[in-house]
């Protein structure tokens, strides 16, 4: 083939491909509906009791008014602002055709039309569960089968009929809750100590309400139904206890103090066991390092701020942590009680947790063995454990590590660890989404792609480490003002996102018991199965921000008080 023929072929190809791409973008972008369309739903205790389609937001019907007369009923107008077609023949394509929490579906079958709105999909976990990629370990996209089932029920036919013969369109809606004024949006620039303190207390009270008389948390809760879901995890129990202790220390709130002590006593009295010659946490034959490490972090916080008698508990557990450490500073992450031997295996997080635990323990015990072990643990994590070609371009989850680095700064400063943490934060800053980079409420989140709804816990845990890094960098005078300002704004953006998404009260009309979940931090904008560590990471990050950055923030000229809300 001649060069001329090839060039001609490619020119035609590029021209045709450009036309195709332009056509696709034009076809699947949202178009303003020809006629105004308002989907009015009456919600009561998280369920729709009536629905009507109107042309204006103020229109009504006797049925809607009757439903609104019931106690606790809320009228919600979902105003359709855009429509576009959906390719429904391929389920995966259908699934990714709806933007989570923004888009619903219009279904037309046999001359009849019904709508499945974002509010309905939110209450039934209809987003981010459509397609499962076992290779990537993620699920994404809307739940197409749920949409079809809901449509079939309303249109009085079988789901298979809808799947085969209905036509589908994507609808973008703007939700307006009648009678409830829209709250101000929390912005990075407007973030201040009052907003953050309110968010901390809301999150802490949410956790505290869930601590039963034995000290056990409501570990995983479906926010919509307010029902407990199965599962429990002791490192997360310890982490949640730590955050409660932080909030109780900050506020001296008796309810938080009592809940903290109940949760801690469960660890102390029911979960403390023998691991060879030392005390550890966990009743299974094989226990993990993380449970004991985070228990020490919680105990140290309690000993410092609530009940000094917990110093004895810190001293009881630190020998186990030290015994699990290898000569090179790395930790063995499990212990087999039956053989009385440590298992030299490594999992994510535990080395950082153990290092932080020993650093925190040192503040309470002043035991040089704790300091030495923490110092060696930190040096290993940022040195030998992360030494490979390309380590400047790839990082693990280092939120515990960087907190340990800051905790150790006064007693054993490690400039190499600070440099590591500042590089990690810079790396994360490049991954942080701007408002115009995501169709979701994504400003401040950390994500790779537009389809998956940004998770809030990574934003929170990176904030915990980010504030710690900021603190140590400022103390060391090693960072430039520009670098500190960039980190400050990175933290503000992430915290503002978390507070916007916090259920304070959130979309209360979608919850069976809004008071029960008030203050909770969801997994994401659409993941409303609330786990205790979501509040822990967010709350601990906010408290650390209040300690380190809020004093400077209160002097900032950009600081404007704002209401807290979604």
């Amino acid at each position: 083939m001649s060069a001329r023929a090839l060039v001609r072929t490619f020119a035609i190809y590029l021209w045709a491909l450009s036309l195709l791409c332009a056509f696709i973008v034009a076809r699947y972008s949202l178009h303003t509906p020809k006629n105004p369309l308002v989907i009015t739903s009456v919600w009561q205790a998280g369920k729709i009791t009536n629905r009507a389609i109107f042309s204006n937001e103020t229109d009504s019907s006797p049925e809607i008014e009757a439903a609104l007369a019931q106690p606790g009923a809320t009228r919600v107008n979902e105003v359709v602002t855009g429509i576009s077609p959906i390719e429904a023949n391929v389920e995966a394509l259908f699934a990714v055709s709806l933007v989570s929490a923004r888009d619903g579906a219009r279904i037309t079958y046999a001359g009849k039309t019904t709508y499945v709105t974002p509010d309905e999909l939110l209450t039934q976990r209809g987003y981010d569960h459509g397609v499962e990629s076992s290779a990537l370990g993620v699920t994404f996209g809307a739940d197409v089968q749920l949409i079809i089932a809901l449509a079939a029920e309303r249109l009085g036919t079988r789901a298979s009929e809808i799947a085969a013969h209905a036509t589908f369109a994507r609808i973008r809606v703007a939700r307006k809750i009648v009678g409830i004024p829209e709250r101000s949006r929390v912005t990075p620039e407007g973030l201040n100590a009052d907003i953050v303190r309110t968010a901390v207390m809301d999150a802490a009270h949410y956790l505290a309400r869930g601590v039963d008389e034995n000290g056990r948390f409501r570990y995983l809760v479906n926010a919509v139904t307010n029902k407990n879901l199965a599962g429990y995890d002791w490192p997360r129990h310890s982490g949640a206890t730590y955050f409660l202790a932080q909030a109780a220390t900050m506020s001296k709130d008796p309810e938080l103090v009592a809940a903290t002590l109940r949760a801690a006593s469960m660890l102390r009295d029911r979960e403390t066991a023998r691991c060879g010659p030392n005390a550890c946490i966990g009743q299974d034959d094989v226990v993990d390092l993380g449970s004991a490490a985070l228990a020490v972090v919680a105990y140290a916080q309690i000993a410092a701020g609530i009940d000094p008698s917990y110093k004895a508990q810190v001293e009881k557990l630190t020998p186990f942590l030290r015994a699990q450490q290898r000569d090179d500073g790395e930790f063995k992450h499990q212990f087999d009680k039956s053989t009385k031997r440590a298992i030299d295996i490594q999992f994510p997080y535990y080395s950082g947790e153990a290092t932080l635990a020993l650093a925190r323990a040192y503040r309470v015990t002043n035991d040089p063995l704790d300091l030495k072990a923490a110092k060696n643990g930190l040096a290993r994590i940022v040195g030998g454990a992360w030494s490979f070609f390309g380590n400047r371009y790839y990082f693990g989850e280092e939120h515990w590590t960087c907190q340990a680095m800051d905790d150790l700064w006064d007693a054993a400063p490690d400039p190499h660890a600070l440099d590591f943490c500042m590089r990690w934060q810079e790396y994360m800053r490049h991954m942080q989404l701007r408002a115009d980079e995501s169709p979701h409420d994504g400003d401040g989140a950390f994500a790779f792609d537009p389809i998956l709804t940004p998770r809030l816990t990574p934003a929170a845990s990176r904030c915990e480490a980010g504030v710690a890094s900021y603190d140590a960098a400022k103390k060391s005078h090693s960072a430039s003002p520009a670098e500190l300002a960039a980190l400050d704004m990175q933290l503000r953006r992430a915290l503002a996102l978390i507070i916007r998404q916090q259920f304070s009260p959130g979309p209360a009309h979608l919850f069976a018991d809004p008071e029960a979940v008030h203050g909770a931090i969801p997994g994401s904008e659409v993941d409303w199965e609330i786990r205790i560590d979501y509040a822990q990471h967010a709350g601990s990050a906010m408290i650390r921000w209040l300690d380190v950055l809020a004093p400077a923030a209160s002097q900032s000229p950009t600081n404007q008080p704002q209401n807290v809300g979604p």
Partner: protein
Amino acid sequence: MASPNWPAKSRIVFGTLDVLAAAILAIGVFLGLPTRWPPVDLCSGLLVFLLLVAGIGLLANAAWSETLARIASRVVLVFGLLFFALVASSVSYLYGIYGAVGRGGATLFILVGALAVPYLFALPVTELLWLGSRKVGKQVR
């Protein structure tokens, strides 16, 4: 019988590149991709077969090597252009739905496309240029 215009070195270079491209494509698709999907597996299998046989033919200086190398390069190029068209139309579809796809998403798609450029675009184009136009009746040993 191979073209008299081909220096022996270039024939060996293109033969080796064809075999290498076949190996990389086979490893990338059949070992690298986590799940099996017949459309991708069958098309990739065809490309691997064509590149491998064309490469062996060129290395062995077989009589049929020019014809097969020409066919293989054209087929690979067609599949390459189809692949880039699918990537571009997927980006367009997601852009229509999600608006700005974000730096991460855009980078991911660019990387996916760039990964295939050497094997599905650069190699067949270069090989077609090297082979030049078919000159019927002028082939002599």
